[in-house]
């Protein structure tokens, strides 16, 4: 949330912005002075005024440098070189053109340009001090030039007014920060609390989901179980519930700490739909591992993986003689691997009948089409493991070299 800069950064920020704004005024004042001198020179060729334009050139260069590098060195260089430029400029104008006094507009412009040195951008008080020094230098060189050319010395109200406005504005800005100094930290604290609260809300949602998937599900299973000895599977599940509740396993589960976006991505992954679907068919699928890695797959690979996994899970349900399977996701650099494991009766791939086309076609063919591999380990009586690997960039993997 944008609540403004914290208090400790404000003086520097205001100082910097004020300096840059001041330099714009300085530039326009110098250009105005040059414009006036050039206009008069073109209308009155008898006066030799063009050296005054040249005199302001070094000042313009140092102003450009000062605007780029707001350091004390360039502030000092601007005041010193600007002072010299103004002296040369004033001496040329005063000796060539009949001015009524040192308060003429054409002399006020470079004077204002110098006093708006803007400080070194390090703070408000520094800006005020630099402005006062710069005006003192400008006045001094103008008085010297006036004494040399016998021009009457008048007080320049314009530059004094500008100096007064600079000081007033900077002080008011300083006071303005003072007024909000208590509120700013409160708002920043509220922003941080809000962020932590949102995070807690997400984690509580995860905890509720864990609770729903485990405790409530198995309480319902006990409620529906027949009287008598407890089933082996239910017993194992309840033991696992207790481990989850008192342990920290779900904290370590990457999907518990991923943000809402990752959760959303997972719910849009085709494998998510497959797991839900086979669960509805009556197969207890336990999914674990690096689930966010699935988001790295392109859509073709993700779909092929999901449909292959579905065939494997359907096979478990149809042929393995067990109603539970485990699916583990491994995220690798170049791809994603899903291992589907069941502890059913197992089989020999060579001995499978012609009705078992699923593994050959729905699994192998599909995965090979996206540049992936399938490996099957099965021992009769001990269960089956199918390892499906797909590359993250399936198009590149199948592209002919």
């Amino acid at each position, binding site marked *: 949330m944008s609540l*403004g800069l914290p208090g400790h950064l404000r003086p520097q920020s205001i100082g910097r912005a004020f300096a*840059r704004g001041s330099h714009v005024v300085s530039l326009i004042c110098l250009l105005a002075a040059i414009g006036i001198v050039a206009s008069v020179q073109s209308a009155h060729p008898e006066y030799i005024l063009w050296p005054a334009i040249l005199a302001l050139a070094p000042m313009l260069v140092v102003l450009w440098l000062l605007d780029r590098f707001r350091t004390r060195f360039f502030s000092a260089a601007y005041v010193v070189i600007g002072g010299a430029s103004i002296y040369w400029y004033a001496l040329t104008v005063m000796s060539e053109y009949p001015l009524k006094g040192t308060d003429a507009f054409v002399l006020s412009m470079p004077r204002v340009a110098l006093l708006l040195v803007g400080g070194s951008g390090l703070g408000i008080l520094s800006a005020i001090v630099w402005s006062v020094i710069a005006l003192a230098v400008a006045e001094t060189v103008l008085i010297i030039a006036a004494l040399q050319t016998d021009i009457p010395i008048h007080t320049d109200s314009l530059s004094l007014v500008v100096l007064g406005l600079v000081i007033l504005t900077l002080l008011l800005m300083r006071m303005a920060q003072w007024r909000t100094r208590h509120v700013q930290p409160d708002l920043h604290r509220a922003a941080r609390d809000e962020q932590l609260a949102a995070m807690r809300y997400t*984690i509580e949602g995860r905890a509720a989901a864990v609770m729903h998937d485990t405790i409530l599900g198995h309480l319902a299973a006990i409620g529906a179980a027949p009287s008598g000895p407890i089933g082996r599977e239910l017993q194992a599940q309840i033991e696992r519930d*207790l481990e989850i509740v008192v342990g*920290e396993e779900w904290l370590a589960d990457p999907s518990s700490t991923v943000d809402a976006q990752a959760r959303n991505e997972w719910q849009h992954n085709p494998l998510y739909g497959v797991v839900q679907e086979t669960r509805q068919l009556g197969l207890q699928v336990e999914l674990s591992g690096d689930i966010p890695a699935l988001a790295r797959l392109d859509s073709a690979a993700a779909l092929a993986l999901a449909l292959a996994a579905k065939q494997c899970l359907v096979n478990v349900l149809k042929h393995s003689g067990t109603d539970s399977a485990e699916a583990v996701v491994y995220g690798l650099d170049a791809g994603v691997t899903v291992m589907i494991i069941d502890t059913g009766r197992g089989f020999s791939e060579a001995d499978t009948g012609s009705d078992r086309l699923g593994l050959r076609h729905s699994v192998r063919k599909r995965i090979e089409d996206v540049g992936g591999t399938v490996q099957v380990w099965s021992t009769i009586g001990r269960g089956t493991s199918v390892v499906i690997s797909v590359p993250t960039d399936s198009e590149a993997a199948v592209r002919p070299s």
Partner: protein
Amino acid sequence: MTHRERTLQQLDPLGGMAVRTITILGAIGIVIFAIAQTFANARDIDFVGLAIVAIVVVAACAAVLIYSSSPLRAPMNRTVHLLAMGLAMLALVLNAGSMWRSNELIQDDWGPSVVGVVSLVLAVYRPARELAVVGSFAALFTGFLALLQVHSLQSPVPPFVFVIVAVTPVLALSLAGAMFVRVSVTTLVRWQSRADRAARRLADRSVEGIARSVQQDRVTILNRDVVPFFAEVLTRASITDEDRARASQIADSIRRVMVADVDRSWLDVVVEQAAGARDRPGAEAVQDPERLASAMNTDQRTATRAMIVTLFEHQGFDPDGFDVTIERDGDEVVGTIRADVIRGTTTVRSDLAPYLAVFRVLFRDLEIDYSASTVRIRFAYDRQ
């Protein structure tokens, strides 16, 4: 207000509020300056009526600036900018018209300086590009007007010099204001993105602690009923009718807790935390039957959180007289915060003012009503 322009007032509502003093002084300053210069150049004036109307228009411009810069009317929009600049330009024309035949010097006319100061004063409230464009057009017009006055000016210099003299204050102050805003906004946005990154890193580090605390809450609830029950069933390795009944009873009670948790919105939690605990006065103050508080965005939630915490911390705040109502009103959502303040009614306004300035930028249709001892804040936002 959900879309924010790149103005200092909108990106830094507190800063915008704090510098209002400068706006007010600037507005008063231009009126005093116009009056003083009118008297000083009384000799040049041909049409006194026009001179008076010019000052009245400057006063109207100052009134617009003071009225529209109030944090409670934020954000200042482009129309106000154009209105204020339009009035300043009208004053410039009237000022020039009042001295049409006898103006000797253009540099002592107050018109161009007033236009420049108005543009500068508006800088806090409008984006840099708009300030630069409007200021440049104003400068062009000022230069053109100066050319038209050449006939009366008593000086031997070429006409273009008068144009430069007239244009300089308008252009310099407008562009200086635009540059000030550009630099400030850039600094602010850059800092914001750094702060956001730091906040995300902090959040990442906090995840584990929060997760443990959430887990601890769950374990505390489960240890009471579920863990002993499961342990008993596992030890016995058999299920009885009594177990079945107990299982559904425990499941019901867990489900009730979960439903109650789901029903609690972030706003309930904020109010509870501000009150100290769920059973403390004020903790149940949120009336949000449709759970519309969840439609607030992060910025709006942050401001609401800060406002509620400030109210609870106010010395005269009465938690029994506090309530927050969130309800649907057509396509938008209307929130109302009502708080009784039994002591310190005079300080509550100044305590709340900065937060209301932030509210004004983040929400629509902000209404604040201070009656004898009750503060009522009404605001609206999108349902998203």
